[in-house]
């Protein structure tokens, strides 16, 4: 069993790497054929035209595209994505400045989404079709339909501008370096509350819907009735039989969601001025910083693959029948 599981994971990793290779190759071509180039920021009345050609040369953009592509592939295999045109630093170093925040932020968001959606689902399911269940359903639908930028700006207006209780942007205060460690920790929390709420709203609604419907379906299955009739207590039924059967679709959704969050949450990052991967990627695209775009895409691709694989492994741990599915 263990051997087949290991083989399945290995097969999955190899196929994922192939997908990643095609992804960055496709992106390489797409970037090179799209109009505009990184040298455009060097065109201004204040800068001399000679500089533009020099810049193209130094970025190796004057070489044929096949030569550029083969150099890019060779460097990528060595784990070197080159130097970012904008930051004049190795792409890896630039990404490492933004990645830690993105990792922590995405994890917090997913945990909060899971906790709240579980909580709401259990309230709903314990009072199936009651007024509370209906209200929660409608409320989550409302949350889902609020666009992120509206929620973000609204929260800033209420809690930052009017009530003045939370900061409106940034990850820490100006006085952060003068604070003791407890105050620093609190400072981070304070800055993250509004962005986490903004980004969680839609996710809570989605998770809730998946979980509630599945829980309802499992609770009404004959085997649950059977367990109850056999005198198994309600807590054990929920923990050992209902949840493991109901969370499968949620794990898949969480895997995809976490992967996407790790590639950045652009709108929330822009509204709250957070240093995340989303802003980094979009700025790189808009300024045609080719190496950085490819580095960011590669990182996002890796995360999406890892989180999906992790989700599948977790599912297979819960339901052994799924091991075959991992390799598929």
């Amino acid at each position, binding site marked *: 069993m263990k051997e087949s599981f290991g083989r399945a994971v290995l097969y999955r990793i190899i196929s994922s790497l192939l997908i990643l290779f095609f992804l960055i190759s496709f992106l390489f071509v797409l970037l090179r054929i799209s109009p505009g180039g990184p040298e455009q920021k060097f065109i201004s*009345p204040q800068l001399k*035209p000679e500089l533009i050609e020099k810049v193209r040369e130094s970025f190796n953009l004057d070489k044929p595209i096949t030569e550029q592509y083969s150099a890019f592939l060779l460097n990528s295999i060595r784990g070197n994505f080159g*130097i970012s045109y904008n930051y004049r630093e190795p792409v890896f170093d630039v990404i490492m400045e933004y990645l830690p925040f993105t990792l922590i932020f995405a994890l917090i968001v997913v945990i909060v989404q899971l906790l709240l959606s579980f909580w709401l689902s259990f309230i709903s399911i314990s009072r199936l079709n009651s007024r509370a269940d209906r209200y929660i359903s409608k409320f989550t639908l409302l949350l889902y339909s609020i666009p992120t930028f509206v929620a973000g700006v609204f929260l800033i207006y209420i809690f930052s501008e009017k009530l003045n209780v939370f900061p409106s942007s940034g990850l820490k205060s100006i006085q952060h370096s003068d604070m003791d460690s407890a105050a620093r920790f609190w400072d981070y929390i304070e800055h993250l509350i509004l962005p986490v709420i903004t980004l969680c709203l839609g996710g809570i609604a989605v998770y809730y819907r998946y979980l509630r419907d599945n829980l309802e379906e499992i609770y009404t299955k004959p085997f649950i009735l059977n367990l109850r009739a056999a005198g198994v207590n309600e807590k054990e039924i929920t923990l050992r039989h209902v949840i493991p059967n109901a969370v499968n679709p949620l794990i898949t959704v969480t895997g995809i969601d976490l992967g996407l969050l790790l590639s950045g949450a652009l709108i929330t990052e822009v509204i709250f001025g957070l240093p995340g991967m989303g802003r980094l990627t979009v700025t790189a695209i808009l300024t045609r910083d080719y190496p950085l775009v490819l580095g960011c895409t590669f990182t996002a691709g890796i995360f999406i693959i890892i989180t999906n694989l992790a989700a599948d492994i977790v599912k297979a741990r819960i339901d052994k029948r799924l091991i075959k599915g991992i390799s598929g």
Partner: protein
Amino acid sequence: MQVRCLYVLTFLSSLIFFSSCQKSSTSTDYIVVGIAQDVESINPLFAFSVDEGSISELLYLGMVGHDWNDEKGEITSEPLLAKNWEWSADTSSVLINLRDDITWSDGKKLTAGDVVFSFDIFSDPVIDSRLFGSFEKFYTDSSGHIDIPKTFEVLSPYQLRIEFLPHSHPTLFNIDLPIMPEHIYGKINRKDVATSDVNKNPVANGAFVLDSWDKNQTLTLKANQHSFLYHKGIIDKVIFKIIPGYTSRLTQLKKGEIDICEFIKPEDTPELKKQGNIEIIPVKGREYEYIGWNNIDPEKFNKEEKFVPNKFFGSARVRKALSYAINKQEILEEYLHNFGQLAAGPVSPIFKDVINPDIKPYNYNPEEAKKLLAEDGWKDRDNDGVLEKNGTKFSFDLFIPGGNPLRNYSATVMKNDLKNVGIDVNIQTMELNTFLDNLFSKKFNAWIASWYIALPIDLKMMWYSKFNSTPINVQSYSNKDIDKILDEIEKSPDKENRKKLYKQFQEIMHNDEPVTFLYWVDDITAHNKRIKNIDINPLGVIHHCWNWKLEE
């Protein structure tokens, strides 16, 4: 259930309580400048953006400093790292005496060697510095690299002479560049300068040094106690806070979390004025909006590299008619709330000594427009509301970059105004990079864009007809008289003669109307009134901020 709700409510209210306990938004020893995006480099070699330039200027001084004289409308120069200077009679060389009390932030003395090294590194083709290619008045090799032995003579650690090409008429602006530390950058291979870690830990000579740089969050400069510009009362720290959202910047300005914010939208100024603690300063005449009319046929140019007059806009009469047909005043009043002024040409009204007061903008006059179009042969022969000439309908695409509400608004006004005189306009919105790519390849017939003017005034790069060396002349305007005047301005050492030439330039330009000059847009800056002695001028917002003071 009720108990749980109570827990949640208690948690939330305590969170809000603790959060509201520690709000202190203003300080007496630092100021916070809100900027939309982080800078990429603070090394003056690579300070390409306006913010990068402003920050690196505070870290690295040049030999000569500049200020803006609003009365005369010109830049004045003052000694900074140089104590004084003396030009030779024919202005082909300058003798510079440096201050002997300047130290780098690591304690080393700044000497003439650093000055020579700075010219060397800025002009080095391996570096790709922002000044590469701009040392035309120096002795250089074929790659544009300054010939050091021929150009510099170091007479003592604090005295040097700079030789220029004969008859090149250099000015103080030619020796104005940030001085870089030779003992730091001299040790680094030139190819590695751009990516060196030294760029993140600058050894500076300016009024400020780098305190911390938290990428995409804050960049903090602190007063350099070793600088000769240091004085009691200097602002201890200047913090650049990166706030990408405009609404957030505005909120923080109102709350006092930031002290200065640039690019305020005109419609937000009444609300800010009500705050009482905020001063609004419109900086005039740095940027003008225009509608570009391609003077040549874009297809012929791109396919056959031929310069054939544009079938619509090749005639000055038509271009003038278009300028008459557009109600620029309406856009200025309705959208810009009068934060700007109508433009009559490319010479900014801030240059009071060279502006030609007789040149007035083409005011809205659809009848005159129709008359001029008819004189040029454009008539509506088939009565479909659109003019024709030689079987060609006067119908074209007007390109605007996406995400610019002012240009969206003005394009709509223009479409309606031009329809009134029988011209059909299709507005096409394009992603900025794609727009720029097409613009510089001269693929558009018509577009709306804007330019920041150069300080000191420089018109050659925009209007000279050698297109290879002037890629900014995207409208491909060509006039031999204009070329002659621009050459003469460059060569003429006589200020009065230059003034005369500038005025002639404006007359010809007005007559040709190569593009439709719309309006000079004010750069509206708002700052907290607790900052005193502040002078925001066309040279920049934080320019010379070592002179600012904070209210006790």
